[in-house]
Each structure stands twice: as structure tokens, then as C-alpha cells.
């Protein structure tokens, strides 16, 4: 394994990403679009609610607009990272195999992809964090961005897993949109979640822990350590799964 191969791989992957117009359009427009919709469609009435990760006697008071901004920031971050992760691992599968035949080790290629994904996750989290803060002042912006990084990690790893498993792009996108929509786009919304009949299912979905982290850090001073650790564990399972499939598919015979 050589650093030169990893750095070259990373540099080429980033070039490919920024040259795709759809990527730039999605990155810039989707979060701004989501948050603008929230601005025009939600009210300022105060909504007391409980968070599953905090004690039962803890009630959070926040406006409908405020919680919606935070929730949509999390949703757009999860969707974007998941889509880009799928794009990174699935789109150039055949050429990546050719690189491996020519001398790249699958580990070198995978590290390059993961580094590129990490940079994308951080970039998206910082951009969405700052954008959200422009609409609605976040008390702990740094910690909130960390929550967005975690949702990026979990959903990025999910995107990698889907991209490693499926050959066809359309099926991959469908799986991502479905899960993101149901999980981070609906069930993790604390306003829905608090009233849900069966919270167990919601707690086992991928966005549960990172959503809890993002919301706790954005609107309270409580510790989000447990949710953070669980987010990392959840993302690591997806990551491990995607790495195993990647190696299996990329091995030379």
C-alpha cells in the first residue's frame, strides 16, 4: 500500500465529483430549497416535546419553525451524503476493477473513496449547519454540525453498502430515497416520534441516534455522548458490510 496511490486516487475522485453538475446542483440547491420551504410553511407557535434519549421529565420548548429547520437540516444532510456515497462506489465500478488489475490494491482504492466521502460529509455538514443557522439561530452550532457529520457518516455508510450491493443505479437511488424518506424524513421527526404507537421500530432505524444527537446538541445543553457513540457504531456496521462486499467484488481471480 502506498500513500502515492491513495493520494492520487483521492485527488481523481474529488475531481470527478466536482465536475458532475448534478452533484453541485444537489449540494447547493437541496438544503436551501428545504429550508426555504420550512421558512414559508411553518409557524412560530411553541411546541413542548420530549426526546427519547433524554429523561422522561425533560420537556423541550421550541417553536415549530425551529424544530422543523433542525429536522430538515438533518434530512437533507442524510439524503445528500447517501446519494453521493452511492455515486462514489457504484458509478465507476468497472474502471475501478481495471485499476485493480493494473496494480491498485482494493484497500488503496477503498481508502481513497472513504477519504473523499469523509471530506464530502464534513463539507455538507458545515454548509448545512451554517445555512440553517442563517435561518434560525442554533445555540450550539459546533455541536449541531457534529450531529450532521454523524448523520452523514451513518447514511454515507448506508449509501456505500447499497452501492456495493447493487449494480443498477436506479435501484440504488430508489433504496436510498425510500429509507431516507421513511426514516430521517418522517419517523425521526420528534413531533411525530413523540406520538408514535410503536417507538421500538423507530429506535432501530439508522437515523435515530444521529437525529437525536443533532436535536439534543442544537437545542439543549444536555450531553449527547450515548447517542453519538451509538451513531458511530451503527455507521460502522454499514461501513464494514460495504467494505466486505467491495473486496469480494473487486478481488482479482
Amino acid at each position: 500500500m502506498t500513500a502515492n496511490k491513495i493520494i492520487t486516487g483521492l485527488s481523481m475522485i474529488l475531481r470527478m465529483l466536482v465536475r458532475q453538475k448534478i452533484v453541485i446542483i444537489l449540494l447547493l440547491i437541496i438544503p436551501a430549497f428545504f429550508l426555504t420551504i420550512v421558512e414559508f410553511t411553518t409557524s412560530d407557535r411553541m411546541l413542548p416535546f420530549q426526546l427519547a434519549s433524554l429523561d422522561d421529565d425533560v420537556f423541550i420548548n421550541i417553536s415549530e419553525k425551529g424544530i422543523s429547520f433542525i429536522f430538515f437540516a438533518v434530512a437533507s444532510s442524510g439524503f445528500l451524503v447517501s446519494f453521493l456515497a452511492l455515486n462514489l462506489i457504484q458509478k465507476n465500478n468497472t474502471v475501478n476493477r481495471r485499476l485493480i488489475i493494473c496494480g491498485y490494491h482494493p484497500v488503496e482504492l477503498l481508502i481513497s473513496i472513504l477519504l473523499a466521502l469523509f471530506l464530502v460529509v464534513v463539507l455538507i455538514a458545515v454548509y448545512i449547519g451554517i445555512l440553517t443557522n442563517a435561518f434560525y439561530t442554533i445555540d450550539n452550532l459546533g455541536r449541531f454540525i457534529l450531529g450532521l457529520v454523524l448523520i452523514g457518516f451513518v447514511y454515507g455508510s448506508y449509501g456505500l453498502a447499497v452501492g456495493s450491493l447493487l449494480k443498477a443505479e436506479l435501484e440504488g437511488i430508489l433504496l436510498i430515497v425510500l429509507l431516507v424518506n421513511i426514516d430521517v424524513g418522517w419517523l425521526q421527526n420528534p413531533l411525530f416520534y413523540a406520538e408514535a404507537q410503536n417507538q421500538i421500530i423507530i429506535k432501530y432505524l439508522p437515523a435515530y441516534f444521529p437525529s437525536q444527537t443533532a436535536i439534543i446538541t442544537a437545542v439543549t445543553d444536555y450531553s449527547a455522548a450515548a447517542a453519538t457513540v451509538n451513531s458511530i457504531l451503527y455507521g460502522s456496521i454499514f461501513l464494514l458490510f460495504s467494505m466486505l462486499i467491495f473486496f469480494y467484488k473487486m478481488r482479482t481471480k
Partner: protein
Amino acid sequence: MILNSEHIAKSFGRNKVLKDISFQLEAGTITGIVGENGSGKSVLMEIIVGVRSADKGTVNKNGRIGYCPQRAVLFPHLTVQEHFIYFSVAYGIDNQQSKRRFEELLHHFNFKKYQQEKIINLSGGTQQKLNLSIALLHEPDLLILDEPYNGFDWDTYQRFWDYTNHLKKLGCAILIVTHLLSEKERLDRIYELENGILV
């Protein structure tokens, strides 16, 4: 001996594409494989290169291998020059040698003016020139070419054969899948893949 393959067999479901393929390649020779569409020529090439596994049999290769797949396998959003850099790093070629080979191949196949162009902006023929050049970049000892001149004009076709003969003189063993009977005279040996065996 550069390549020795013995008793290769491969099936897809009930379809036995390759039944019992054995052949050798010596240094400084050009060997052709012909056969109908769907006879398994590309599958055989992929097994030799290591893209695909065989159900049975062994493939032993010596030296550096260059492989040009039938369709251009390239990154759509990278330029020609970036492909040379990326694959040079994969082959482990140093910068100086990479630049020399890069210039040589661009000049020989006459596509220097496209070196800063992204692949999505290139014609099929120019993409194929790059597809072939990547296989030649590291001066291989064994060159496996699966219909490498798809989309080539007559001039490029001639340049391709000039280069192939040059490599042969340098001791490279070349295996080429072809449909063109007119190429028989250019080959040292020719096999026909028929019903899963070489005749």
C-alpha cells in the same frame, strides 16, 4: 513461456461457454482468436486477465500484463492526461517514464490535441485510442487485446498494427481477439473458438 493456460472451463447456467481450453503464448509472437459472436472469446480474455474466475483450469502468467477490453473502460469525468497519470500510478511507473510514454503514445496514435479533454467529450474512436494506450503504458510483456480497434479509422488501424509489430520485435507476447479474416497474415498463430474449444 509468457502464458500457459490449461483446461479452462466456464459455464453460465446450463450454457457451457468454455469446455476445455489449453494453449501457450511464447515471447515475440502474435496469436489471434476468432469465433462467432457469443462464442466466449471475451470471457476467455477476462479469465486470462483475472477479471473473471474459471470453473476449472489454471492460468499461469509471467511478466507485466496489458489488457485492452472490448469496450472503452474509462472515467467519464477525467481527462485523457489524468487517465495516464492515474494508470501510471497504478502500474507503479515513475513520473519521468510516465511522461515519456504518455507523449510517445499520444503522438503515435495521433490524439495529442485531446489530452486536456474529458472522456465524455471524446468520440468513440478517440476513447478507444486511450483504452488501448492504457494497456500499452507500462510496456507489457503480455498484451491481451479484445477487438482493440473498434471505431478506429484506417490510419489509426495501420498505426495500431505498426505498434503491435514493434512490440512483437521487443519480445512482447500478444493475444488478440479479432473478426477480420484479412488479419490472418499478420498473426503467427490463429485459433478458432468453436463450441467451447479451440481448434
